[in-house]
């Protein structure tokens, strides 16, 4: 760890509040008529979190539902922005928050690879270079020429995961999606993640399958009610977590 302590993600004193509005005013009339009446309360999903992610680390974010793990991941991707504090990232970052976001059901698997990879910021040339790898990894065979709406949910997930994992990002953020496909495909996903780890890619995973994470990750961060409860060696933190929440 000491040899390669280049920070790729810096989270500095980050807090995130979500507005909880009952009867959200969305039209002008409602805004004018009820301008001081709407009950606004805030839910503080993250409370003053500070942490660094170093290059080449594989980190698991663990915690019970609603503890703020996914919010943290979304903040790192810059889909949402912190209420206060700052997040700095370095290098190409790809997030897998939901598989197949942006898939178009009427287009074929192959066409969707182009469209989806474009959302991840790849150029046509880069996609051409990778398309065979993506198709092979997905094991879809001839179904790749069929419209995505005809896919089973497993096939859909396999295609989406294959695209995302072949984007060749420096930082990969993954949210609860490792339960993809059958046993065979899951093992393949983990093997691919191990391979990326060896290439010194930075990986942050949110997951509840603690056993598989324990093998893959070096470090785990336990988040509880919007705060970092524990941060350290994966085995230690996960055991601690299991003692309290298991």
């Amino acid at each position: 760890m000491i040899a390669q302590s280049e920070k790729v993600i810096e989270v500095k004193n980050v807090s995130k509040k979500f507005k909880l509005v009952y009867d959200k005013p969305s039209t002008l009339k409602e805004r004018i008529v009820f301008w001081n009446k709407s009950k606004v309360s805030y839910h503080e999903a993250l409370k003053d979190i500070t942490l660094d992610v170093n290059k080449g680390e594989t980190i698991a974010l663990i915690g019970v539902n609603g503890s703020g793990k996914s919010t943290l991941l979304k903040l790192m991707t810059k889909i949402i922005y912190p209420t206060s504090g700052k997040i700095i990232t370095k290098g190409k970052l790809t997030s897998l928050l939901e598989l197949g976001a942006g898939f178009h059901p009427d287009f074929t698997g192959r066409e969707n690879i182009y469209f989806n990879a474009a959302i991840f910021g790849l150029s046509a040339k880069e996609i051409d270079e990778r398309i065979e790898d993506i198709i092979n990894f997905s094991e879809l065979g001839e179904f790749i020429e069929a419209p995505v709406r005809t896919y089973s949910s497993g096939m859909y997930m396999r295609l989406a995961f294959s695209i995302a994992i072949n984007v060749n990002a420096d930082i990969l953020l993954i949210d609860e999606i490792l339960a993809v496909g059958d046993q065979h495909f899951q093992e393949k996903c983990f093997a691919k993640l191990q391979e990326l780890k060896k290439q010194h890619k930075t990986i942050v995973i949110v997951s509840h399958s603690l056993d598989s994470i324990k093998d893959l990750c070096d470090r785990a961060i336990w988040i509880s009610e919007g705060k970092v409860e524990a941060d350290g060696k994966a085995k230690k933190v996960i055991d601690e977590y299991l003692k309290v929440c298991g």
Partner: protein
Amino acid sequence: MLREIYNYRELLKTNVKKEIRGKYKGSFLGVLWSFVNPLLQVLVYAIVFPYIMRIQTPNYLQYLIIGIIPWTFFITTINQGMITVRMNAGIIKKVYFPREILPLSVVLSGLINFFISCIIILIFCLFGGIGVSAHLLLLPVIALIQFVFTLGMVFALSAINIYIKDTEYLVQFILNMAFYATPILYPATLFPERFRWILFVNPMSEIIEAYRAIFLYHTFPDVNGMIYLVIVSVLVLAFGYMIFEKLKKGFAEEV
């Protein structure tokens, strides 16, 4: 910012393609509709105005077409652009990409459509005995100004529409009025003198008059008008972009 858009150029390209093809997907004539539509509109006005309202403008058909086609570029782009952020809620919530791509691809697809539609104008000019002149070389310049102006509007409106949904309906009404406050159907001289200043303030009248100058009158567009246009367009773009940048951070939570 520009660098980021360059990195995501493939996304921009696929989005522009989707924007052009997607709208008429499934219809028999497909993309052709984007050219047939303004032509049908021209047909209606070409019957109504000379014969019923007795407007006597030389080369009225060409006069009309040169007004309608840039106007169609303007309003279809505003209408599609205004809702583009909302329509893409699904990917905005799940994936990071430069949000500017969305309004940009709508206006770019409008521009491409417009250039293709210019062929229709040319056909009417050639067969109507008006011919063409070297002034046509200014077409890209005027189109670029219109592009800048429209992009600024779309930046602002697409972002505001996420927070205040009335924007869509309000803008519809304003566009409807603007259609009659622009010399599209009738020449500026028919406008009551007291209200004629509206035409000079309205950037779209300046733009359409500029197109008429190069297509129909074979002259240079009015220099003062063009300077005014450039200033207004750049200001609108700067202001619209500022609004978009300010509001875009909340898109994923608000849509």
